[in-house]
Every structure is written in structure tokens, then in C-alpha cells.
């Protein structure tokens, strides 16, 4: 089947297969609260010889927005780079930080055109859809704390809590049970890590997960190993 050809039943198989590829990726969890949003990803270290610090599955897009990825991480780099440039262009043109939804839309525009982009640079166009899903967490003055899920089909949906990747089914039902609108940011961090702990094969530790938060006052911040250790202690304590 051609990439852009509909099937008789009205489906785009390549896009659906791309969504399947994400189900093989490492689990990522995002939770939004009134105090801010939290992102947590399982690093999935395949060897004790590899450097855990070099595995980066959470990326800063601007000081007030970050993204967690699951699936083909190399594809995510293209999306994240594009998002970073869009965020700076917006700041330059309008002298304000970009809203989280317009930024998510810009990422999805790229996903929909398989990498071609609005500048029409067709040399960047891939012959297949992106094989990665992103959880974009950010804060802007218009809508406050937000969490968006974007997938290879080029759609995005706003979530209060979302899990993607290999353990996403179990993780999502866990989130549905435990999520509450009045959660504090610390409770959200604990929920994110306990959800990951349940679906991860290896024992959770400061080395094999990545944790980040976005708050109105401090913006986007990736937790240091010490900060992750503090949250893990709260979990076990």
C-alpha cells in the first residue's frame, strides 16, 4: 500500500502501523495538575555498560514547555528541533512565549506532512510517517498548565493524565483510578513514578527513569538524580 493511499475501508495503513510501532516504545507518563504538570519516562537501559545520562527521552522545548517521547526516538529529534525553532520564532516575532496548544499544532503539522514543514522544504520529507508519540507539558498564561498527546496521525488531544508506550494500557487504567483534579504537584510526581514502577520490568531507580515538571513560576525543569531520589523515597516511605 502506498503511504498516502486510503484502503477500501477508509484507513491509512502506514499511519496505523506507525501507531503500532509506538506500542513497542518505552513507557512515558504525563499528569497535569493545577500547580503544574509532570512527565516521567522509563529509560529502558539495555546494558549495564551504557551511560544512563546519554539516554534522553525528555527534551526541553522552551523554558515553559517540555516533551516526553515514546517510540522511534530518532524521529522525535526532528520533531523536537522543529518545535524549538518554532518556539523561538514565535518569541522573536511576537515578543511573548508561545502558547502550548499552538506549539503542539506546529509539531503535528510537521508530523502530518512527514517532515516537509510549512517552508515547503521537500528535501526534508520522509517516505513514512513519524514513528513516535509525544507528551507535551507546558504552562502558558491563557490556559494555565496543560498536557497534550500527539501521535503519528498528526492529531493532538489534551489530557489530564496520559500514558504512552509499552505499558500504556495498564498504566492508563492506573491513572484513571488514581487521578484527581485537586492533586498537588508532589502527589502527581508520586503517582507518575508509582505507575512507571508497576509497568517497568526492571526495578525502578534514579538511573533508569527520567522525571520533569513544568510550573508557572519556575518553568520547565528536568529533575536531577538527587531530586528523583527524593521522590522515590517518598514513594517507599
Amino acid at each position: 500500500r502506498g503511504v498516502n493511499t486510503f484502503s477500501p475501508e477508509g484507513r491509512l495503513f502506514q499511519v496505523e502501523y506507525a501507531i503500532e510501532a509506538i506500542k513497542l516504545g518505552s513507557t512515558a507518563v504525563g499528569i497535569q495538575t493545577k500547580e503544574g504538570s509532570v512527565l516521567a519516562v522509563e529509560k529502558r537501559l539495555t546494558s549495564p555498560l551504557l551511560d544512563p545520562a546519554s539516554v534522553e527521552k525528555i527534551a526541553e522545548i522552551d523554558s515553559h514547555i517540555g516533551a516526553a517521547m515514546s517510540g522511534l526516538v530518532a524521529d522525535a529529534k526532528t520533531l523536537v528541533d522543529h518545535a524549538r525553532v518554532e518556539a523561538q520564532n514565535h518569541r522573536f516575532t511576537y515578543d511573548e512565549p508561545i502558547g502550548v496548544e499552538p506549539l503542539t499544532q506546529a509539531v503535528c503539522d510537521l508530523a502530518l506532512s512527514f517532515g516537509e514543514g510549512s517552508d515547503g522544504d521537500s528535501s526534508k520529507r520522509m517516505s513514512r510517517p513519524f514513528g513516535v508519540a509525544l507528551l507535551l507539558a507546558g504552562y502558558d498564561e491563557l490556559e494555565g498548565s496543560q498536557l497534550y498527546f500527539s501521535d503519528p496521525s498528526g492529531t493532538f488531544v489534551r489530557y489530564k493524565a496520559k500514558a504512552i508506550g509499552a505499558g500504556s494500557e495498564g498504566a492508563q487504567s492506573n491513572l484513571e483510578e488514581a487521578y484527581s483534579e485537586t492533586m498537588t504537584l508532589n502527589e502527581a510526581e508520586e503517582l507518575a513514578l508509582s505507575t512507571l514502577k508497576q509497568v517497568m520490568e526492571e526495578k525502578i531507580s534514579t538511573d533508569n527513569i527520567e522525571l520533569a515538571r513544568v510550573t508557572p513560576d519556575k518553568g520547565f525543569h528536568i529533575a536531577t538524580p538527587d531530586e528523583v531520589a527524593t521522590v522515590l523515597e517518598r514513594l517507599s516511605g
Partner: protein
Amino acid sequence: LLFSPSQAIQYQNNVPTPFSLTAELFDPEGNSKPWIDIRGGDFEEVASENLFPSQRPPPPLEFAHGTTTLSFTFQGGIIVAVDSRASLGSFVGSKTTQKVLPINSHMIGTMAGGAADCQFWIRKIKSEALLHEVEEGRRMSVARASRILANYLYSVRQLQLSLGTMIAGWDEKGPQLYYVDNTGLRIQGDLFAVGSGSTFALGILDTATNRYELSVDEAIALGIRAIRHATFRDAYSGGFINVYLITPEDGWKRVFQEDIARTPEAWQALKQKEESELDIN
């Protein structure tokens, strides 16, 4: 990079034509001209012939060149001192121009020459620096920021931009100061003064033979004296004296501001009145 060069447009007989290098290099008889400063050089020749106004090329744009900006490094960091007058010919357009433009928390650029050119391109460098911070996880170095700007200005020197900026900052190499201008020149130094009042400022700055060993207060006082003297002698400099200090701990910070039109006592009294009004509110 976020930006790319655009086309240059020339005006001949009030009709825009695409820029062509050969038009500049050969005179009407076809003899090659020595490479001339294209800013203003041609206009005097052509205007002296008795052409009708509609046949003459438009006069070169009058930029706000008048300014005094200076910067020097010393043991306590980097001092950047500027005036705040924007002059359009002999008209004082503004006395509150912001001639120090931040690039990141530890780096600033100064404005001399065309105000719009400086504002726009230093803002572009600020955008590049912020993108760099997000991608690399650390601040952009002064050498890199000034290189990006200088390389770019060289590639578009035919646009006749007017820009003389000092990129000053504290990075991993310590205090760094570069002068970058519209010809694409980029030089590193410990002391620079740029603008129509620069020569007067340099006269004051060069009297301090122990400049590096000055204390922070003495260095600020030297910067103030230099700008004040330049505004005294140069008609195109004036307004406010703004002095900034760059240190590794705090980054850049304005440490002094004074309205030259008032005596120091009157200025202090005005500031205290404003502060007490703010407290009441």
C-alpha cells in the same frame, strides 16, 4: 540558523532594480572604478550634475549615528556605559533610547549606528542564543554569538546596514569583549568606544593607566566620566548616562543611571520622590 540573507534592492532613477555588482565596479565609459565606499560616494558625483530631481537617485538614508558607547574589562568584571540620545540629523529624536540590548543573562550588545539595524540584529542573536541554551543546556559563549553576527553581517554587507556594536559578556573563558560592525569586522579587545562621541570618551578612558586594577566603584566612575565628557563635547550624544556591570555571579546589571539635564542632586531628589510614591502605592 534561524535567518538567511535577503535580496538587496537598488534604486536607479526612482525605479527599483535588482542589485548588480557590475554597476558599482564600472563607470559609464566602461573603465573600472577603484572599489569605493558605496555609502554616499556615488551620490555627490551624480547630484553635482544638473539633473532634474526626478532623475537623481534618492539621497542616502539618514541614520541616527550620533551616540557614545564604551566598554572595558577590569578585575571586577566588564563595564558597559552608554548615552541615550537618538539624533535624526540635527533633531534630537529621543533622549530615552535603550542602547544596551540584552542577549542572555550574562551577555549584552550595544547600539551605535542605525538604531533599527542594531535592534533587529541583536534581537536575532538573542533568539539564536536562547535556542542554543535550550538545545545545548548551557549559555552561548560570547565568541560564538559575536561570530554568528559578524559572519552574517559580512555576507550582507552590500545592504549598507549601519551597525557598530560591542558584544560584552562573561562566559567560561572569563570576561570577553568583541567589537562587531556592519562590514563584518570582528575584533576582540579590553577597551572599546564606538560612536560620534567615542574619541572624547577614549580621551578620558586612556587617562586611567591602571584600568585593570580599578575597584568596581572606581571603574563605574570612570565610565560615567567618559560618557559625561562625550555628551559635553559631542552634539549627537546626550540624554541619560546608563552604566552596566557584568559579573560571573549576577550576570549583567544596570548599576548607574543619571539624567544629564539635571544636576546630580536634582536627579537624586527626583528618584527618591518616585520611589516614595511607589511605596505609597
